[in-house]
């Protein structure tokens, strides 16, 4: 683990009074390596190491811990601070129905998360309706309908229609069924697909969702910043969902996405079932990234 690796590079700290540029240089290299292996974007890792250097240099060497532990604590605390407070508040006030729009790359877990979100909101006393706005993927509508049926949550769908129209009609359907939250499940798409990104912009413009969530796969590597920044530029989303975190991916994408978008990670997917949802815990995420 990182502490053990750092101990080797920090032997020279024994008997030293302060952390200096020189005596932590090797440690910083080791930390950078660890972050890259954890899939933190390389630019973000560089900036992060710079912050650590500034925080660490000049610090007194604490006698009650090992030098490795001291540096790891600086790194850990900085990671926690960067990833922001644990907050999963959704903007759901105003004239009902409140509208939440989900977006992201192909296969990131949007449809599954839509069901999880419906489950979560219902437990909080809301009346959600799921909206099947993916008209492209074979059996996407059926997938959402089955998930809705299993949860006893209504699903709005239309045959031979287009996403903007489906979303617009769902508002009336929600009011008729006294549903106070709409969850729009959209098709996965590439951030470089102009037409498909335009479709999302059109939905946002027409439907004005209160909350837009970017759903990202927790195993995403260096590309995380590309997709996240493009989606942010086009949609200015409010929050991020990180899925499939029940695997063993270190999850460096969490830091990369947070840094490049400055948006909070609101939820974490930890399984395939509708109850496999957690709110984001920056402490846990920091420990995981550090391995």
């Amino acid at each position: 683990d990182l502490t053990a690796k750092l101990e080797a590079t920090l032997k020279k700290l024994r008997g030293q009074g302060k952390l200096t540029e020189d005596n932590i240089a090797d440690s910083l290299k080791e930390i950078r390596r660890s972050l890259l292996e954890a899939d933190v974007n390389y630019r973000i890792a560089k900036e992060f190491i710079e912050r650590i250097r500034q925080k660490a240099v000049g610090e007194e060497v604490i006698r009650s811990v090992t030098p490795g532990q001291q540096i790891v604590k600086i790194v850990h605390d900085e990671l926690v601070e960067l990833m922001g407070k644990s907050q999963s508040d959704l903007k759901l006030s105003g004239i009902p129905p409140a509208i939440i729009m989900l977006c992201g790359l192909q296969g990131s877990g949007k449809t599954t998360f839509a069901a999880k979100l419906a489950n979560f909101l219902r437990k909080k006393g809301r009346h959600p309706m799921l909206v099947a706005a993916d008209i492209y993927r074979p059996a996407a509508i059926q997938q959402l309908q089955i998930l809705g049926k299993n949860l006893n949550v209504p699903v709005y769908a239309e045959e031979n229609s287009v996403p903007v129209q489906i979303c617009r009609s769902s508002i009336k359907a929600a009011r008729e069924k006294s549903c106070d939250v709409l969850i729009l499940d959209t098709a996965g798409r590439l951030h470089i697909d102009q037409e498909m990104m335009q479709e999302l912009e059109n939905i946002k413009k027409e439907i004005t969702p209160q909350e837009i969530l970017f759903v990202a796969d927790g195993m995403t590597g260096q590309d995380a910043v590309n997709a996240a920044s493009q989606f942010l530029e086009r949609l200015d989303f409010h929050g991020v969902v990180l899925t499939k975190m029940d695997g063993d991916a270190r999850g460096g994408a969490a830091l990369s996405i947070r840094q490049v978008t400055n948006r909070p990670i609101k939820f974490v997917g930890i399984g395939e079932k509708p109850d496999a949802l957690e709110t984001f815990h920056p402490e846990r995420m920091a420990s995981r990234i550090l391995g």
Partner: protein
Amino acid sequence: IFFARKIDDDLLEEIEDLLISGDVGVSTTQEIMERVKRQVKRKNYDSTEQLFDLLKTEIAGMFITRLQPTDLHPPKPRVIFVIGVNGTGKTTSIAKLALRYHQQGKQVLLVAADTFRAAAIEQLQIWAERVGAEMIKHHEGADPSAVVYDALEAAKSRQKDIVIIDTAGRLHTKINLMEELKKMQRVIQKVIPEAPHQTLLVLDATTGQNSISQSKQFIDAVGVDGIILTKLDGTAKGGAVIAISYELGLPVDYVGLGEKIDDLEPFDPNLFAEGLFQ
């Protein structure tokens, strides 16, 4: 970045960053850079064109290429077992493979052995109809091994050339799900002793270093013959496959370049290496 520059430490560092940003990974990047630096010194390179060609050659050379089976007497049916973690593109890739075989005049049978995920069977059914391939399915919640058993018996009696088995996405860390996969493999072997003739692991190009961990676990559980690397039409480079091919000995057989049924290409290591630098 190679245009009209001299080969200095700055350029080498930029190349290193470029490889890292392509998900090549720290140790593989170091290996590539060390080889390249040695060659640059030895051959006294001074032009960036030479450097670029050297990098491409080195990277392309790290891929294991599969020796094409001569298939004078191809197994009938040839059984292809498709596995991988959730959402990587298995079902879509199977549709693409089915089309290729169909276009070669082969009789293809698809097996809907993802009995877990909502509408997984319906999804494959739609693709089967588009390709013109038959499909064997049970109901949602059925035992996937039972579906496989029935499908292989049907493939034999109906004289199918190719059987492609779609499985549920599963995280490689879930022991019970990996056991389920092993059981499916045992059932396949029972019905057709030489099968599965090809086990393909589907990896998502947007995944980072976790692809390596996935590959190791799937190899350990059921063995893997080749990789399908999907979503290479995005901005992700899929660089983790270099380590997977070089260190784990897995060839990359195909790349997925989109969501349509003809968006599948055989893997070309030279094109892949070039792609890392675009």
